């Protein structure tokens, strides 16, 4: 069986992971129908699940694809979705995970959750809600909001799916105008859409089945998603590893073997023999042994967990970092974009728990400088941030951290903010620069 003998490539694993994308849309613009359509076409819906839908639809009526995604009892009762749901389907070329963010209450909070770790965002545009006679054509505020939020959260690819084109009079003309408006908006906002696709989620046009709807001769939505590249920071020159788990004889992990420092490589690559410096101690040593799960390795790339044995015993704990010497610039005061997710507003000067990499420490918001208007990406001066607000802040951490800009490094550039009293996840910080 060639399967069991297939050689692993430690540098490549991360790029072979499923493509994770979030779907952004408002109530009634067909998002649940689109997801139902993807699952149905991806053969992820099985007969008993269809039976349940057909029973609910009543004899002879078409099934409601949107019902495939309402997971919780309250959602079925209220006909809404409450929390981010994860769905799985596969095509011949790729595996997919959909992070489905509901479009109404707690919107930013859910979208931040869905966007963190997503490779792409599919923003739904409901063609029937636009005034197609108006010149110039105005996009809906939620379309701008969803796309700008995805951009703000640095989702690598933003795709627009222009839906319900089967329900407008002149689909070709309508799509041409919506596409022009989306392109103009994206150019103004400073991003290039990965695609703009005319679809009918209800009938399946251009979702997985090619159709001339909207004058399309381009790829279907699925073909587009199948081809999107994934970047995991593997190309960085210098290695950075947050130590997650220290295995030694005492904790039962490795018997009599030397201490193994396990951590997922955040950027670059760890190689046998390479010199690494420990943060914060500043001591350095060489990699004497390198492990991945179940076997030895010579090099381990970004996105994979490495087990590092150093050539001399250093004091290293969970929360420390291993780095190529001379490549980190520790700082304790920094500017960051703060997405606030807690119903209790952010309080300047209050001590919060911060999680950076695998380390918990205390920190405080030294100043709130502005709030981002996600309809325009303009900044408004403010000193308060409440639930679902996104703003620019200055943060003071209890001690220095090997921070990086979030644009360069999704691991060293992100922090969690946790309320010390309630233990709720209050917000997340995307690092911009030292302050």
């Amino acid at each position: 069986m060639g399967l069991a003998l297939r050689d692993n490539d430690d540098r490549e694993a991360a790029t072979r992971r499923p493509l994770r994308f979030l779907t952004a849309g408002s109530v009634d613009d067909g998002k649940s129908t689109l997801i139902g359509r993807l699952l149905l076409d991806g053969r992820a819906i099985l007969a008993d699940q269809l039976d349940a839908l057909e029973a609910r639809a009543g004899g002879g009526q078409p099934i409601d694809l949107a019902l495939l995604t309402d997971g919780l009892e309250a959602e079925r009762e209220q006909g809404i979705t409450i929390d981010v749901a994860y769905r799985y389907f596969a095509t011949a070329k790729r595996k997919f995970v959909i992070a489905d963010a509901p479009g109404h209450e707690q919107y930013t909070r859910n979208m931040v959750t869905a966007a963190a770790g997503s490779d792409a965002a599919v923003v739904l545009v409901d063609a029937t809600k636009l005034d197609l006679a108006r010149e110039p054509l105005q996009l809906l505020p939620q379309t701008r909001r969803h796309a700008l939020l995805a951009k703000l959260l640095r989702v690598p690819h933003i795709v627009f799916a222009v839906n319900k084109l089967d329900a407008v009079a002149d689909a070709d003309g309508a799509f041409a105008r919506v596409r022009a408006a989306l392109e103009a908006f994206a150019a103004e906002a400073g991003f290039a859409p990965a695609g703009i696709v005319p679809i009918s989620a209800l009938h399946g046009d251009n979702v997985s089945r090619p159709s001339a709807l909207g004058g399309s001769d381009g790829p279907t939505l699925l073909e587009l998603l199948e081809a999107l590249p994934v970047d995991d920071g593997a190309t960085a020159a210098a290695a950075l590893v947050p130590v997650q788990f220290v295995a030694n004889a005492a904790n039962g992990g490795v018997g009599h073997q030397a201490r193994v420092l396990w951590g997922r490589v955040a950027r670059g690559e760890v190689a046998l023999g390479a010199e690494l410096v420990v943060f914060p101690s500043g001591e350095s040593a060489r990699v004497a042994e390198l492990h991945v799960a179940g076997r030895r390795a010579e090099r381990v790339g970004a996105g994979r967990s490495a087990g590092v044995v150093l050539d001399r015993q250093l004091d290293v704990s969970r929360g420390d970092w291993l780095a190529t010497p001379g490549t980190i610039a520790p700082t304790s005061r920094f500017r960051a974009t703060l997405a606030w997710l807690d119903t209790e507003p952010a309080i300047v000067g209050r001590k919060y728990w911060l999680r950076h990499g695998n380390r918990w420490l205390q920190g405080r918001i030294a100043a709130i400088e502005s709030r981002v208007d996600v309809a325009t990406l303009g900044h408004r001066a403010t000193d308060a941030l409440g639930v679902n607000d996104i703003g620019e802040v200055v943060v003071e951490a209890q001690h220095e951290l090997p921070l990086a800009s979030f644009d360069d490094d999704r691991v060293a550039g992100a922090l969690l903010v946790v309320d010390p009293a309630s233990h709720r996840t209050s917000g997340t910080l995307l690092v911009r620069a030292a302050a």
Partner: protein
Amino acid sequence: MNAPTPLDRLLPEIDLGQLDALEEEAIFILRETAAAFERPALLFSAGKDSCVVLHLAQKAFKLTGSAKARLPFPLLHVDTGHNFPEVIAFRDAIVEELGEQLVVAHLEDSIARGSVRLASTDESRNGHQSVTLLEAVEEHHFDALIGGARRDEEKARAKERILSHRDSFGQWQPKNQRPELWTLFNTRLKPGEHMRAFPISNWTELDVWLYIQRERIALPSLYYAHHREVVRRRGLLVPVTALTPPKAGERVETLDVRFRTVGDISCTCPVESDAASAAEVVAETLAVTVSERGATRMDDRTSDASMERRKKEGYF
């Protein structure tokens, strides 16, 4: 076992490199749980998903050549007393072979304590496991339970976090879950609270079988085709056992069957199959048209929301 089916022919389209990515994620979550909590335990029923998690834990914590080392946490089995004997035999054999510590929490003890009251003696004990589980959490002061639940199993589970918080009554609050951002898990707990950790959240039933095949993970024999006496009841095949005798008028048949899930004997049903190896199960799974729980679990058929209700009460 039959001769292995050449998988490349069955699966020309599936890139097996994705199993490495799923393995990496699962092992990362196992190490995170072991590092972030004081007293974790791995829920182990000897079902296929928990066998996969146990295998992943071996890879996460044991280096090649140190097979006699122990995992940094014990295994915990909630024993309903209604078990398939071959599953319990398998559980004990693998625990012995790996040298792990096994804690067994007996539902019978909860009945004796009066914390579980059965409406009738033949009532399914599956839903009552939550009580016994939470009693074990309190007795052993466990602060994290590692489970083999997957998001593809059921709609309420699709909204489950990878690290899922339980309050001091062991309850899940689905409307108030902690946002989960990248791998920055919020592991902070107050006294009496605990966390559930689901390392194979993002795996599908097919992934599980592909991995069982690739890693040659041993499973209880009833996961593969065997002769078994069954009766047909409400569209399901119900195994004939001392606990589940045929009802009046039901015809007992001997069929070739295998189990897709294994739980309490009174609510777990097999499907007709002649798949005698993991590769053949993979082939059947690719062709399957009924979901895992729909085909095999009487308890999930009670209502569309039955899983969610049980989860809120502390079920796993």
